[in-house]
């Protein structure tokens, strides 16, 4: 089976780097720099995160983007040749939903690939769940998965869904 390149995108603090660190079976390539703005954490990704994971026989290359809009040039760089998109959003930060929706539109218009939304922090209520987030984003519920990015089993769920969607699209074409 060919390896699948998957882009992990989403607003700052959504849990992109955390998810890749949680899941990767190989040493993660990260590019953290000290955060000079108040973003609720000490460091932030400035170029990319990279990790790999097997889901069954399927090898996935995970490419995480930086979260801040000023790094938007990296979205196109990292999306080149991607076959799937995982968009992460923090379930306890609904103010991020509108920019995240714009990001989803942008990325899927540039690279029309199967996508899944991962709604993080499901272990820390009060938090928006998939059934509340799906209508907000106007996407089918099957494309929205609630996760805890620090838990390996939970964090793998949206990727499993994504691989299923990619397989279904391939079968249909």
């Amino acid at each position, binding site marked *: 089976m060919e390896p699948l390149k998957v882009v992990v995108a989403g607003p700052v603090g959504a849990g992109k780097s955390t998810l890749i660190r949680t899941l990767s079976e190989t040493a993660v*390539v*990260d*590019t*953290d*720099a*000290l*955060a*000079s*703005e108040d973003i609720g954490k000490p460091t*932030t990704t*400035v*170029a*990319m995160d990279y990790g790999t994971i097997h889901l069954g026989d399927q090898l996935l290359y995970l490419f995480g983007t*930086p979260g*801040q809009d*000023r*790094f938007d*040039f*990296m979205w196109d760089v990292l999306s080149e040749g991607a076959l799937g998109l995982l968009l992460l959003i923090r379930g306890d930060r609904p103010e991020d939903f509108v920019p995240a929706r714009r990001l989803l539109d942008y990325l899927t218009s540039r690279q029309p690939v199967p996508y899944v939304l991962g709604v993080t922090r499901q272990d820390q209520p009060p938090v928006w769940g998939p059934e509340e987030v799906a209508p907000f984003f106007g996407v089918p519920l099957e494309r929205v998965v609630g996760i805890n990015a620090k838990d390996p089993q939970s964090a793998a769920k949206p990727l499993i869904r994504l691989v299923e969607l990619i397989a279904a699209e391939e079968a249909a074409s």
Partner: protein
Amino acid sequence: MTKQEQLQGILRELKQALPELRSIVVASTDGLPIVHDAADAPRVAAMAATALGLGKRISQTTDLGMLEETIVRGNQGYFVVYAAGEKGVLAVSAPADANLGLIHLEARSFAARLAQIL
């Protein structure tokens, strides 16, 4: 003298030392402009932070030791990014016929001074 004034002073000195530079941007390592003379500073600052962050990681991963600088060379010029301590980035743009050795010599010492202030 405020931090900003000190940094502006260093920027001016660097311009005098290397008049051939097209633009200079000092940014935070997370990509926000601090002092600069570039028209497109926010964008250049973000890209400089990306280039430096990725350069550091490549340098580590491929056993090159501590990163000295990241160089982008186009057929019409150079864009060079230096680390200015843990928190800062110094990015300069120069024409293709510039003396890169001289730029490194000056820029590295200015980067060290910037690091003291940042």
